[in-house]
């Protein structure tokens, strides 16, 4: 009967809407993060992933290192080292210059020395979270905001943070 088919069609469409809305609920998760980031709402937010107590009884030396792996970029930290207390929020900047006469996209990958110290190094804001595209000849300063977890073993007195930029394949011009 025609009506039965009409009914089935409509019910299928409604079922698709229901399933779609279920997906929408999950889509709200990245939406929320994007909207907060775009509106800068999380500026007050200081993710308290670690104990909020600043451990003033000791300092840790963070050394900053940079590598541009086969990328035509000059890449350096503006500060070579910094003394911080575990639990204390700090921000440093790195500077990147694209010497190629064409746009280049790169992705920074962090590494730590000693390696296991990475577990205690919490990056709140970092250019390493996203790909960076620099126009021809562009210079850019990029911040890293971090906090060292007070749970850091006392035996670690210094952590080296190193970034290596890799070119993202398929983007940018030819050399």
């Amino acid at each position: 009967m025609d009506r039965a088919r009409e009914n089935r069609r409509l019910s299928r469409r409604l079922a698709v809407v229901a399933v779609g809305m279920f997906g929408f609920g999950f889509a709200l998760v990245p939406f929320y993060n994007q909207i907060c980031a775009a509106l800068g709402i999380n500026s007050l937010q200081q993710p308290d992933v670690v104990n909020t107590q600043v451990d003033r009884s000791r300092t840790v030396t963070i050394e900053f290192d940079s590598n541009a792996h086969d990328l035509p970029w000059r890449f350096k930290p503006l500060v070579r080292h910094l003394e911080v207390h575990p639990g204390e929020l700090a921000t440093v900047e790195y500077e990147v210059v694209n010497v190629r006469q064409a746009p280049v996209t790169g992705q920074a990958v962090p590494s730590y020395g000693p390696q296991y110290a990475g577990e205690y190094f919490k990056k709140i804001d970092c250019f390493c979270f996203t790909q960076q595209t620099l126009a021809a000849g562009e210079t850019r300063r990029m911040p890293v905001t971090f906090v060292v977890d007070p749970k850091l073993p006392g035996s670690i007195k210094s952590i080296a943070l190193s970034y290596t930029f890799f070119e993202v394949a398929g983007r940018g011009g030819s050399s």
Partner: protein
Amino acid sequence: MSAVVHDHDDAHGHAHGHGDHHGGYSGLMRWITTTNHKDIGTMYLWFSFVMFSVGGLMAVVIRLELFSPGLQIVNPDFFNQMTTMHGLIMVFGAIMPVFVGFANWLIPMQIGAPDMAFARLNNWSFWLLPFAATLLILSFFMPGGAPGVGWTMYAPLTVQQGIGMDLTIFAVHILGMSSILGSINIITTILNMRAPGMTLMKMPLFCWTWLITAYLLVATMPVLAGAVTMTLTDRHFGTTFFNAAGGGDPVLYQHIFWFFGHPEVYIIALPGFGVISQVIPAFSRKPLFGYASMVYATSAIAILSFIVWAHHMYTVGMPVTGQLFFMYATTLIAVPTGVKVFNWVTTMWKGSLTFEAPMLFALGFLFMFTLGGFTGLVLALVPIDIQLHDTYYVVAHFHYVMVAGALFAAFAGIYFWLPKWTGNMYNETLAKVHFWLTLIFFNMIFFVQHFLGLAGMPRRIPDYPLMFETWNKISSLGAFGMGLTQLLFLYIVVNCIRGGVGKAPQLPWEGADSLEWTHLPTPAPYHSFETQPVIK
């Protein structure tokens, strides 16, 4: 509106009740296997009454504990379980299913259709409910008991709960599934199965309100499912949706929940509006004023309901622009809601009014739903909400709109349609007593709670500082009275089913003019409109 063709069954109009009419089954099997919209409507109504009673008992426990300051009868943990399950059971087990019961009974009859579009799906949609309700009740018997998180189930408190929380999450999934399937059925029925000549703008407003409500359900119940699923995985599968340590955010839960939660309150209210829109014209002997406006206003309310959710979250720390946006959008909903109230009053104006029980409940609804709407306007204003959020003022507000609003509308509808359903007249005197006692006790419970909230009493606490004692006592006494009064209601309904005060006339309500009244005998036959009428 006049019909031309009567179908074969109508001419006989026998009251059903004989086993051989009902698909061959009798007794329990009839009810388990029925695909008849009238049977299923009846089951929804009885189920919701049972759930009202269970939820009501929990309310009595709550009000018993709150009768005096100090902890007398329950420990705080169990008290939290009571408030949580009272809310979940009343919202999902009582007030939503009662209106689905109305939908099942009335929509096919009012549009001249023989049954719902998917009769067997209809049966499944119902039987999911007792199963889900069992899960909810079962959670009390798990180690740790039922969850004590409020019906809103905020994270990360939900992550701390015992296994009762998981049972509740499954129950919510099943309740949601039932609603979604039922809504698909309702939308398809209304859009595809109307009798020829029954255009959308001719159909009773009750059907319009259910059409719109069903769309709201299809759009928002899945979002609730998402929220509780994320809670489940945060609890057991290592996700961190709502855990800052993993990059998540507890406030995210609140956004997702209230994206569902706000339309949910309109899902509860709109079918009640539909019932009132049938009852008031009938007892004014005058057509509903501004039918088209009522359709547009209801649609506007439904659409606006999607953009106001964060007014439940003014204190989470959202930026000023957010607060302002949601405040403006929320106050905007007052406009179409006001239009509806004005239209109902104007329907009465210069009518020829009588005040049988359905009309009394409809007037009670009008008066007190509007009062609740006004306290909602007060809460919509951010600075005032800062003082009233999470206090008893909010509890008073939503009980006014949901109990004095939706529940009164349900009572109005039950008295209105009992003759059509049973073929008998209920005892009008007792029904009036039921109305007045319910009205008085309801206000005793909840009017004074506005004062408690203004004075600073928070929600969801089992014990309170001494300055709140007086109103709490009055509120508790009202609760005991209200609970007892509903036993009278049960008596009236059962008595009516069994014969009441006599057979109902074909048209007990002079001003009623929808198809079930004009084209079907009283009581309505088991199968109606097997041949659809043609509407002029």
